[in-house]
């Protein structure tokens, strides 16, 4: 039996005890970075991605202040000028200033990206919650979603656009419909695994009604993976919007969008590559930044998911 009699404090003083040799550290101390800067230091992808996205948003909002020319003003006299101090990104075949068009073009891309992300998340969340909780609805809804997912989102969006006329609003609706199945699948998966959590069982045992369980125990725990997914949808929607505009099935030509500008510069690609180059550069950087932000959010919000993907 364990016994306290092997402990004897009699006659033990600081003078006669054996002192352990102190151990030094084998690596330089970690500088504790707190607050906002600490967060940025630990999450560089959120910092870099977020900063670029923020800059793009500010650029789109303050486009009138950042440009020196009307992006839609035609000037046949100064067609296809090379980039210079006067026309920073040059002019297109109708003499419009490419720099101004690219800056204004950010508006369409960002509006489409963010709107689709929000709409697709909300709709997908609803469908996913219903099919995760209602058994008979599940097989029906999921077969429909599977059917939709078997068509590439871009083709589905093109087909939907063919049914209607080109406007930013219709582009948003078309891309949202194409993105919803992916979100629903994700949410359904998350809901099914959350339903198995012991805290949900404990809530049932504690007499909580199903709607409250969904609202209080399931929904809040889908927010983290949903936020991550929303950023990826945002990036994908911006690309799809550009493609739609590029092939003339998206934003009407009167509104400058990166896809439109590239479409118009396509014919002159071999001689005047800058018309395509600048909108393409802005599109790539923005999509990259949004994806970077998504990766960073995934790592901090949902470490388990980071390992899975």
């Amino acid at each position, binding site marked *: 039996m*364990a016994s306290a*009699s092997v*402990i*004897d404090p009699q006659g*033990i003083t600081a003078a006669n005890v054996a*002192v352990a*040799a102190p*151990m030094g550290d084998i690596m330089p101390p970690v500088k504790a970075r707190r607050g906002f800067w600490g967060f940025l230091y630990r999450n560089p992808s959120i910092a870099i991605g977020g900063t670029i996205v923020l800059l793009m948003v500010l650029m789109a909002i303050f486009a009138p202040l950042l440009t020196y020319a009307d992006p839609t003003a035609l000037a046949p006299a100064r067609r296809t000028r090379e980039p210079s101090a006067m026309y920073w990104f040059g002019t297109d075949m109708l003499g419009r200033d490419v720099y101004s068009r690219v800056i204004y073009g950010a508006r369409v891309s960002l509006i489409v990206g963010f709107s689709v992300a929000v709409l697709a998340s909300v709709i997908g969340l609803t469908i996913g919650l219903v099919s995760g909780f209602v058994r008979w609805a599940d097989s029906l809804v999921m077969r429909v979603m599977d059917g939709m997912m078997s068509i590439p989102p871009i083709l589905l969006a093109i087909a939907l656009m063919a049914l209607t006329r080109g406007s930013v609003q219709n582009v948003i609706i078309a891309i949202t419909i194409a993105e919803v199945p992916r979100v629903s699948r994700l949410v359904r998966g998350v809901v099914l695994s959350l339903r198995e959590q012991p805290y949900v069982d404990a809530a049932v045992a504690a007499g909580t009604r199903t709607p409250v369980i969904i609202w209080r125990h399931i929904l809040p725990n889908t927010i983290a993976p949903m936020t991550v997914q929303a950023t990826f949808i945002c990036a994908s929607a911006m690309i799809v919007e550009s493609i739609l505009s590029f092939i003339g099935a998206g934003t009407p030509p009167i509104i400058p969008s990166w896809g439109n500008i590239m479409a118009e510069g396509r014919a002159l690609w071999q001689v005047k590559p800058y018309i395509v180059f600048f909108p393409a550069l802005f599109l790539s950087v923005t999509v990259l930044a949004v994806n970077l932000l998504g990766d960073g959010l995934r790592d901090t919000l949902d470490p388990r998911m980071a390992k899975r993907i």
Partner: protein
Amino acid sequence: MALLEVENLQTHFRSPDGINRAVDGVNFHVNAGETVAIVGESGCGKSVTAMSILRLIPEPPGKIAGAIRFNGRDLLKLSDREMRDIRGNEISMIFQEPMTSLNPVLTVGRQIGETLRLHQGLSAQAAEARAVEMLKLVGIPEPQRRVREYPHQLSGGMRQRVMIAIALACNPKLLIADEPTTALDVTIQAQILDLMRDLKRTVGAAIVIITHDLGVVAEVAERVIVMYAGRKVEEAAVGPLFRSPRHPYTQGLLGSMPKLGSSLTGTETRLQEIPGLVPSLKRKLDGCVFASRCPHATDLCTKVAPALEEKAPGHIAACHYAIKDAVAA
């Protein structure tokens, strides 16, 4: 010279909010053919110690310092190539979760043969023959058939036997078993512990067994090292450790376990609690690491860190107040 000598082992990890001193100055040795248990609760550094011996700690964020001498060679000074020659060959390891440690797409025979072909240059036929022999050794019925099966076709206990077969295939001098029976049911655990005792006689490898279960320690170990908060706090032969533990932490651990059969002997008492929590290893600890939870702690304990001292022959403990001779309760 001992087979394995670990000297001033420190394994630290860098994390955003400080250095995690998972193992901080641990010394011990293992003699050839001996079974040593390292016991402690989660976060005490026992598994990190085992991983450090095989240099399985990712660096960065981790870093290992000190010396780990195996047959006189300091493993920390070897190149990655030389280390690979030692792992699975002279020192091998068994993990807790047999399912995740086996490759699901290779047959059991291939997985045993792999190490043999790698380290001993055996031909495919010779490796398979040896694999069958190993499966027989670890008590798997119908080894000729089982050798061609995949891990998912085996039960948990069988898989752990296969893990042991792989670990023993190259006749290692040292076997490190990290919680080898924790994931198993009690009747299967009994089979595996029985097998390990048997193999010890027939194979003769030294074993370091890492566990939190004092019952398992009592069943298989010859010598026991008790770890707490990244440090060794007590070490003794298994008998004296259980009969007269010197460190208040070891006493607390033993007192907090209910004894099987207590209802028969009428020794049912309230379990002894160790109050409080393990201290954070991210802060530098002054004084004794156990002082904050120790019923006997005084000012001296919180200020002055006790050295490991021999309290009785072969029985060392890091406690100022543990009495210092062979007189025990």
